[in-house]
């Protein structure tokens, strides 16, 4: 009985194995063809995907550094200009006040 079962299993395996192996290569070309077709269809789709990450483009470090130092000096200059404007405005206001005091007869 055991011998019969062993022969049955062996025979079944020998029958199934070639069928299984035969199906595998036939499945691959079909899948690949479908992928190619799908990719082509996706490429034609109305969608643009931008590159991202540091490797995607070359970032000019020198230009960024120069821009950085320029920002510092420009902002400092603008601050000094603002202070100058404030002092000028205060001086004008003082002159107006002096003129008003003189006109009103004050000392």
């Amino acid at each position, binding site marked *: 009985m055991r011998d019969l079962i062993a022969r049955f299993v062996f025979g079944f395996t020998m029958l199934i194995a070639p069928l299984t192996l035969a199906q595998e290569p036939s499945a691959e070309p079909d899948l690949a063809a479908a992928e190619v077709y799908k990719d082509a269809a996706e490429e034609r789709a109305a969608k643009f995907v931008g590159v*991202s990450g*540091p490797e995607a483009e070359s970032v000019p470090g020198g230009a960024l*550094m120069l821009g950085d130092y320029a920002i510092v000096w420009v*902002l400092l200059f603008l601050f000094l200009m603002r202070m100058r404007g404030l*002092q000028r*405005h*205060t001086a004008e*206001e003082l002159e107006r006040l002096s003129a008003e005091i003189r006109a009103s007869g004050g000392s």
Partner: protein
Amino acid sequence: MSGARQSGSSTVWSLILFATLALFAVTLYTIFVVAPVEQKMGIVQKIFYFHVPSAYAMYIGFAVSAVGSAVYLLRRDPKWDALAVAGAEVGMLFCLIVLLTGPLWARKAWGVWWTWDPRLTTTLLAGMIFAAYLSLRSMGNAGEVEKRFAAGLALFGLVDLPLIHYSVQRWRGVHPTVITGKGGGLESEMYWALGLSFIAFTGLAVLLIWARASAERQREETARLRFELMHR
């Protein structure tokens, strides 16, 4: 007596100005000639020598504003209010420098201009608090209520300063930590460049706060004179 004090003050001012200018010249030489180019980031790393001291000067400005505000709330002396305004403006200037120079480095190092890293976010928050302070103070001639409310806002902004500083250590983030205990440190020439830059920026912050506070006191005095003249 007052004239002599003004003359002495002017001399100190001039000394700090010349020392700061000389220090900036030496600092720039050290940054671009003595300090080596960083191995991985390249020349863009040299942004670091102005970016970090700017953040430090921002701390000085905002801290001065908060201290001036606190003393003003206690004593109601306009001199301290002028100091608070000056500190907030100078702090805001350096905050802008930090927030604009950081992204230029980040674009090269991280591949993005901005990320919601804890240190970046808390710095932006401080900038927004003091922008609110300055907006409140710029609405014409601020009255006593506006001044007191703004002083409270400056004290609220002070709470954010330790958060900025310790955010790198407390929370996960991508911001470098080279000058803290966790970092790998700097080469000796890099330390020199950074140290000199720190001193130069401290001098610059002191000069700007001093000049701005003086201008603010004069403006307040002029406004007071006009008010007295109108009600005479």
